[in-house]
Every structure is written in C-alpha cells, then in structure tokens.
C-alpha cells in the first residue's frame, strides 16, 4: 500500500467543506509557507522535491517556476490548467469534485512562491459542477481569511478566480489557454516567447496542471526531500492515475511512482485485473495522445524487464517499443476490442479538436480520420497503412503546438504494433465489419532480444 498524499482524506465525509478540510490538517501548508518561508524557499523546496508536471509533458515544476521572469513593476500570474479534456484522463475532475480545498491551498502556496497577486483556475466548460464547487470553496477560504487582502495577517494578498472555458481540447495547451483566458479565440501562440516571459496579458505567467499544484501542498508540509524519497529515480512522489477501459475496478488511484505495472493492473488494491475474466490486449498508458502498446510490450520492456509506472520506465524503448506517462489516463483494452476502431475514434477526436491554425494539423488530422474510417468500415486498401504512417510523420513536429504530435503518435504506434490487425481489416473486410480480430499474438511473451539488431 503506497502512501497517499493527495487522496489521503478523500473518503472523509464533508471533506469538500472548509471546516472538515481544516480539521484534517488542511491549509497548514499556507500557514507554513506564508509565515516561515520566503517565496524563494518555497521554490527551492519544490525544486528539491523533483516534482514533474502532471499535465503530460513531465517538465520539472520547480525548474518551470525558476524560469519565470521577474521584471520590476510588472504583474505575474499563476494559471491553473484545469482544462482536462484528454480522452481517458479524469483525475483532475475527481480531485476538484471531492477535495477542492487541496487545489486552492496549492494555488495559494504556489502564487505566493511566484509572487502572483492574481491567479486563475481555468476550468473546462463542461465541468460546470466543478466550477461551482471551486467557487464555493474559494468563497469559504476567503471568508476565513486565506484569500483576499493580507492573508493570515501577513502582507501577502491574493485574488483567486475561476474561469470557465468553452470546452475545447486545444485550450489545454498553455498558450491557447492564455488566449482563451484573455477572451480571444483559443489558438495556440507561436513560441517563443514562452509564457514565462510573456504570458497572460503579456506578463510573465506560469501555467500548471491541477495535480502539480495540489502536489505542492504535501511538498511544503513534509519538505521537498521527504517527497523526493517517494517514487523511483527522477520520477518522484505520487501520481494520480485515472484507470478506465475494460478493468474490474476502474477509477482514480494514487500510486507511488515506480509501482510495477503488473501490480497496478492486476492487484485488487488497484485495477483488479481485466473485467469479465478476459485477457488484456492493449494499453494506452497516459491518455489518448501517447503511443498505444500491445499487452506483451506493455508489461515488459523490449529488454524483458518488468515495466514500472514511472516516467522513465514507461518511455523505455522510445517510440519503437515504449510509450509515455502522459497525463495518467490509463486505458486498458481486453481481447474483444478493435484497435482499428479505437484508432479511428482517437483520430476523429483530434480532427474535431484541431484548432485549424497551422496547415499540417488542420488538414492532416482530417485526412487520417477519413482513411481510418475507410479501414474500419471495410473499404480500406493495403497501401493505407503506409499512407497513414507517412501522413503522421508529416504532421509530427511540424506544427505550432503539441496537438499535432498528439494526433500523430496514436496512429503511428497503432500501425507499428498492430499492423496485422489493420491488414486483416483490408484482406478480410467482410469479417472485419462483423467481428473482431481478437487478441492474436499481442499478449504472447516477447521473443528474446538478439544482441545485434
């Protein structure tokens, strides 16, 4: 049983109210930070903790904070990215629904560390209940003197606002989020300049994921060194994983990074194995945009080592045989799932969500979706697989924002690992529309690696 830092009190009745949260030791981090630490010391603690951004890219949060430009007389902003829209990821929504004060506490500490006098929580438009929950929580915190002017009698003041978005996936990209927050069309900006130099309203801005900000609370309470003891290697601390798909117990789990994948997947404490006694066929480990892996490659790396739930271990093997931690949207597929249909579904999502600003993504996502639709419905050609790989290569890396990469990776990886299933959709298109390819060899033990490849 790993240690719970974020979800420790999640089952306490009334934890969403200020009083219960406070009685469980809540807002201690605010008191500690504001009364005993300087902003730089807070940043230093976060740096020591080795906390990595929980939104997907895994960039060290402390580093990001220390990059923030601090010119005299210019406002600085902290923006919390709660535009969680990745298919398969629902950890932030869970956190905001059940324990909103944790996020607010983290926001106060982080804003203090960055010297922000105004901070925003940008919440995806579809999460209206969560927006109301957060607003109520902010009002409670303000009434108790944890927000507003001169927090806890110190000379630090902070205003915290919740901003509903319009429900666009692209607004989860940090510069698109800032555009949207400014009231403009949510198109990603062309970088440089990065938000740390010119972000919201042209001022230095830090954009952090909900979970990253919430993780600042235990880091301040226990100290960065203590936090860094959890986890493995450069993947420190705990991570929320939103497990979904054909699992016995889907839900949000807090795990110590470095937990063996097999344990996470099959132990009753976590996912409890595959539902209905079926076998695992494939896994998307970190939300729809990371490469999909067949069961055998997911459980063991190409070198035959057991895979762990950590940034490094999941990406072991690079794009050839690895995947990514991403945002922790864990999707398991059992033997009855069709990878072609799933890939088409993802491509359809990215086609729908592409902002249309830069040409490779605007045109390429639609093209891939159409080709995959054709394959799924039995009108595909053998050349389509190579076409898809080529189109995904033309998109990847050539776009303004990472949405292009996110659209290209699932398609490229699905064809890399499940090519025979795609080919079966062409060679036996009549059956492909009525039944599934099944598990085939995707769960077979990996062949021994040969020394020279």
């Amino acid at each position, binding site marked *: 049983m790993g240690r719970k830092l974020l979800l420790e009190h999640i089952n306490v009745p009334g934890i969403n109210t200020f009083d219960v949260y406070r009685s469980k030791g809540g807002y201690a981090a605010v008191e500690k930070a504001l009364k005993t630490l300087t902003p730089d010391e807070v940043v230093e603690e976060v740096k020591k903790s080795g906390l990595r951004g929980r939104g997907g890219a895994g960039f060290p949060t402390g580093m990001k904070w220390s990059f923030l430009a601090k010119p005299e007389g210019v406002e600085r902003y902290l923006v919390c990215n709660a535009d969680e829209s990745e298919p398969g990821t629902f950890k932030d929504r869970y956190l905001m629904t059940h324990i909103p004060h944790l996020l607010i506490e983290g926001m106060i500490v982080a804003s203090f560390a960055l010297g922000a006098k105004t901070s925003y929580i940008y919440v995806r438009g579809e999460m209206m209940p969560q927006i109301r929950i957060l607003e109520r929580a902010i009002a409670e915190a303000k009434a108790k003197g944890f927000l507003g002017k001169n927090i806890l009698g110190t000379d630090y003041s902070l205003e915290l606002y919740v901003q509903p978005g319009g429900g666009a996936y692209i607004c989860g990209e940090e510069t698109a989020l800032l555009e949207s927050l400014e009231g403009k069309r949510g198109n990603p900006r062309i970088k440089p300049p990065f938000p740390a130099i010119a972000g919201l309203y042209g001022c230095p801005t830090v954009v952090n994921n909900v979970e990253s900000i919430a993780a600042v609370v235990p880091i301040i309470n226990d100290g960065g060194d203590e936090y860094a003891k959890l986890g493995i290697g450069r993947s420190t601390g705990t991570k929320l994983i939103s497990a979904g798909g054909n699992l016995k117990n889907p839900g949000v789990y807090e795990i110590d990074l470095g937990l063996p994948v097999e344990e996470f997947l099959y132990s009753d404490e976590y996912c409890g194995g595959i539902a209905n006694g079926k076998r695992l066929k494939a896994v998307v480990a970190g939300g729809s945009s990371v490469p999909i892996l067949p069961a055998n490659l997911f459980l063991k790396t190409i070198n035959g080592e057991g895979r762990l739930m950590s940034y490094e271990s999941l990406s072991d093997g690079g794009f050839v045989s690895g995947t990514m931690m991403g945002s922790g949207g864990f999707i398991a597929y059992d033997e009855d799932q069709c990878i072609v249909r799933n890939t088409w579904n993802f491509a359809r999502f990215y086609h729908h969500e*592409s902002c*249309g600003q830069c*040409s490779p993504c605007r045109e390429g996502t639609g*093209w891939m979706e159409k080709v995959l639709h054709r394959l799924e419905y039995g009108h595909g050609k053998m050349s389509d697989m190579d076409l898809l790989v080529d189109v995904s290569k033309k998109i990847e890396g050539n776009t303004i924002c990472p949405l292009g990469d996110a659209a290209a990776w699932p398609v490229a990886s699905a064809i890399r690992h499940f090519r025979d299933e795609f080919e079966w959709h062409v060679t036996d298109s009549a059956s492909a529309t009525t039944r599934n390819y099944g598990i085939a060899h995707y769960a077979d033990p990996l062949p021994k690696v040969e020394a020279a490849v």
Partner: protein
Amino acid sequence: MKVTIDGFPIEVEAGTTILNAARLIGGDIVPPAMCYYSKLEGSGGKCRTCLVQVTKGSDKDPRPMPKLIASCRTTVMDGMEVKNITSPEVIEARKGVVEMLLINHPLDCPVCDQAGECHLQDLGYEHGAAKTRYEFDRRTFERIDIGDKIQLHMTRCILCYRCVFVADQITDHRIHGILNRGDHSEISTYIQKAVDNDFSGNVIDVCPVGALTDRTFRFKNRVWFTKPVEAHRECENPKCCGKVTLWYKGEDVIRVTARKDEYGEAEEFICNTCRFDKKKTSDWVIEGPRKVSHKSVISSNHYDTLKPLPVVKQNLVLQEANKEQFERETRL
C-alpha cells in the same frame, strides 16, 4: 548579428527573423511563405511552408534546435547556422506541408483569376507531387460577395489569416475572424456586411490564393495576357499612397493593384477609390512598364521579353500564333 543560411553569411540587426535575413541574401535560399506578410504585425507561423532547420543555435549555445522551426517567426541569434534547401528534412517537411495545403484546395486553376500570380500554384509547382494521395471529397463553400467589389470563395482559402490581420490593422477596429475549428474553419461572421472600409480592397492583394478576388476583374482576363504598368496619382485619401500597378489589356485598364515586391507583398496599401474607380489612363501618371521576374508566367507577354520563349521555338502552332511578334523583333 551574424547568421549563416545555407552557407551564405550575412550581418543583420538583432530582432530580424530568419526569413527576413534570408530575403536580404536573396535567391533560392529564401524560404517560401504563404501566411507571413512583413507589413502585417502578428502574421506568420501558421502555414509551416517556411520551416527551416537550425543546425547551430548561436555562438553562446551551439546546440541545434530539436525540431524544424518556422523561419518567419524565429529571430536570429548571433552565430546561428540555418539550413534551408540544403537540408533534406526541410525539403521533405515542405513537401508534406504543400501536400496538406493542397488536399482541401479545389485546384481549379484553369478557372481561377489568381492563376499566374498564385503563391500556392508556385509552391505546388516547386514542391508538390504530380498526383494527390487524397481520395476523399474536398471541403466546399458557397461564394460570398463582400460588397459589389470583392468576392470571397472560401473553397480556395488556405487559412493564412492575412486578410484577418489586414482588417484588424489597416482599419481601426476588428472586422472579421475565423469561425469554427480545424478543417471546418472559415473566414467569417457576416463578412458580406462587416467589411466596409476605404481600404478593404487590400484583402485581395494580401490573399496568397484566389480566395479573395476583385469582382471588377473577375473572369475579365488571364493575368498573363495583361500588361502591367507602374503608375501613380494624387489620391484625395491622405492615408493612400496612390502608387499602383495598372494592368492593361489593349488600351483598357482592367485592373488596379498595389505594387508588389518580389515576394508578392504590397509595398504600400492603396485605397478602394484608386483600386476600383480609377480605371482610365487619364486618371494616372504612367511611370513605365513594370519589371516582372522572368520566372513568372506574366513575363511571357511582357514588354521586356522580345525573344520568343524556348517553348515557342519548339511548337509550330505557337510560332504561327506569335508570327507578328517575331517579325517585330527582327525589325527591332
């Protein structure tokens, strides 16, 4: 600051973009640009045709950049080394971008007024494949008349946003924008009513393709049958420079445009009166024939070109058709 592009070194001021540095060098190493327009602040970065490879970041930090970057929006660093046409990756990526730009483009060049001066046509000719791999329906839109002088044909649009920036920056307030997302995007919101300004005609000049066309010129002539002449007039509008190019067919001025440089950018914007209403030779002071690059199809019918083109020499029908011209040449 010193920057080297495809092996050509040049000194530029700090803050210059790679694209502009390349333009200072000139020649084949200038990356193509479909959305960047030096006169429009904030333009660029979208079409991705100007992607280049930075093999050395700067003297201070010589690491190469991990991805190809948009040269129109990246400023140079001292000692930067850039590869454009010498990098196979760049050429490959550019091919991909051109293919992407063309998959939803109707390719109706034979009936498009922009043909002959279309940047996408040039780009497709340089980098495109002869045959498309796209086998689906292309997006189509109804044509929209913006007043009686301009027509928007969204089907041809490549969403470069230039006209949006023109409307924002030439006029004093925001006029139109982009509606919808992804490949459903369109230049929009009641554009037929919204665009009403003395300088609205400039959207035609900035459009790199035939999406915005001059209704007074539509289907009048192919651009390579016209003769461009530089001219000016004292314009009553204080913001208008009055310097234009007149496009003659015989004795008639059939079109007036702003003067464009070799990258297709208007040197100065002109008002709608000059563009649409002054179509008599007597309205203008003629300066002389416009220099047209010999690479452009427009030059095939230009005053400068007295010698028959190679294609004519090999083709009997064309020789017959141009007989008069050849006789004139021998007389000269």
